[in-house]
């Protein structure tokens, strides 16, 4: 590495003198420059650097837009998010994320993967606290009142099929196109998926009667509102549901 800057070092007959004098000249020049202009130091507590609108500080939460799907909990790389039960404004018990900022590495994946953009990245980076308990931010504490459009982060990708067809400018989010599919033969009609669905898009409907005269019920998906959270897939006792990935 020193070889890289070798041409900058003094050579020749006066090399030894220059090795002593040249750094003196450089430091003197630097001193005058930094005395009449300002040094590179930013006086941090008194002045702060400009940060962009989508700066990835601690995660924030729009409480009312969150559907409690738990994607953020599963996507969080250091496992810092936990879904907890809490009361919303109407007094109903709902699931909302709780972030342990002692674990958070500010990657912003929770905001990227959030299907409703309820999870946002905030410009808040001054997070020091005296105890570890103070670093666990509940759903209400995660709120960031003056959030802007830029704080919402979307993850969108090109589809291979689109690229093969020559469509280069279309990007889609996986939660808009990947949808659950039902294997009708396996379904036993237990309605667990209906209970677990955070967006209430699953309805049970009757398709006929069995040998004993009981109705055969199957889930029906209203796919426009589905956010592809896979909770129904995980909950299904007979593995009758799967996510059809659009490629």
């Amino acid at each position, binding site marked *: 590495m020193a070889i890289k800057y070798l041409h900058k070092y003094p050579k020749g007959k006066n090399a030894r003198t220059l090795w002593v004098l040249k*750094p*003196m000249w450089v*430091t003197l020049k*630097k*001193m005058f420059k*930094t*005395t009449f202009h300002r*040094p590179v130091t930013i*006086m941090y507590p008194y002045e702060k650097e400009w940060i962009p609108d989508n700066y990835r500080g601690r995660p924030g939460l729009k409480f009312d837009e969150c559907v409690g799907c738990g994607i953020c909990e599963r996507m969080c790389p250091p496992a810092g998010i936990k879904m907890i039960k809490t009361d919303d404004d109407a007094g109903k018990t709902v699931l909302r994320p709780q972030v342990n900022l002692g674990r958070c590495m500010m990657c912003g994946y929770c905001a990227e993967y959030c299907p409703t953009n309820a999870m946002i990245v905030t410009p808040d980076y001054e997070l020091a606290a005296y105890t570890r308990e103070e670093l666990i931010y509940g759903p209400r504490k995660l709120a960031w009142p003056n959030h802007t459009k830029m704080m919402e982060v979307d993850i969108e990708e090109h589809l291979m099929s689109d690229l093969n067809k020559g469509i280069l400018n279309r990007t889609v989010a996986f939660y808009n196109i990947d949808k659950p599919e039902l294997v009708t033969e396996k379904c036993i009609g237990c309605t667990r998926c209906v209970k677990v669905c955070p967006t209430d898009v699953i309805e049970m409907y009757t398709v006929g009667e069995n040998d004993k005269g009981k109705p055969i019920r199957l889930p029906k998906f209203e796919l426009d509102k589905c956010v592809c959270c896979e909770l129904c897939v995980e909950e299904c006792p007979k593995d009758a549901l799967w996510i059809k990935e659009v490629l």
Partner: protein
Amino acid sequence: MLDGLLNWVSFSNPMDNPFYAYGDVYNLPYDIGYKIWELIGGTLAWLLNLLFPDNGVSSFLVSDAVMNALAIVLMAVVIFAVAFIINLTMIWEERKVLGRMMDRRATRIGPLGYFQNLSDGLKTFLKENIMPAKADKMGYMWALSIVIGSSVLIACMIPLSDRWFIVDYGTGLLIIFALFAIAPFTILVAGWAQNNKYSLIGGMRAAAQLISYEVPMLIVFASVALMAGSFNINEIVHAQAETMWYILPLFLGFVVFMVAAIAEAERIPFDLPEAEAELVEGWQTEYSGMKWGLIMLGDYFRGYVACALGAIMFLGGWMLPGIGAGPVPELVFLLKVFLLFFIFIWVRAAHCRVRTDQILNIGWKILLPLSVINLIIVILIKMTGDMPWDMVIGLIPWDSIRGVIPWQ
């Protein structure tokens, strides 16, 4: 006597005191100490006289002998306090200038960051005081005491002007140099006593460094003394005021002195005994808490002494050419000291640490011949007797310059 007691704020002239030790030479710190004791002791005596009229203690407190004794004690305090404040200012200067040379801001506590030293001292004071179990207690503590004590002693012995001194030694330069050279030897003892490999290597390096720079430095001292015809600091300064600053004829000696002084003060290009990157903190590794703080303070005292000697020997001390002492000669002297210390800081910012073999090469192969050449120049000047700069001085219209200066 009662009149004397009631007029306790009279601020009498200390030179009227029969015990005044400096003859007919005015001594400012003695005067300050004398007047402080006139305030304190005079107040005490006045109050006691109010309570118990015509008692013996009151007249004892303001008698000539007691006044003189306590004035000397207070004078010592004043001189140390001033040297200490100079030292703090130099540390502050180093921090600020070094910061700018490194493209950063420096300390910011207090006005212009001046109080950073005080907070550092407080922090060091609160640290735990540890002594290694297998250290040689005697050598450990005595070496520390001698390093700090000799550094502070010579810093207090530096006269700031012909009125700010403790004793006007006939051999002032020699005594200061002798005390200056004690510390590197005790560093070797300290390195040995700590029972630590880093300390021992640091102490050995101090010894290796000592033999390489002491000889050229002593020759430069000798050449300056020969030039001035005296070892007395006052006479050296006045000799320069009569002719010219010795930096011009003895520029070679000045360069040799600065290099050797940096080595003597153990500052960056020659801080082999400390070398915090290689040896943890060198010979200071096992000194913790305020012991280390005092060592650092002593280091800067030695830096101050080195700069002050440079100002005395080469920059004309507290005199300015053509002007003389001026109204505040102490300030002139300190400005020169800070200027020389700026060169120390500049070298520190520019250069990296030399190796042990390199400093031996520099000392024996470069500095020693240069100092001998310097001595030869002095001898030639003294032999011819005709100062080569007399002609140059004759061209400058000193009388017209003196005419516009009010205090001459």
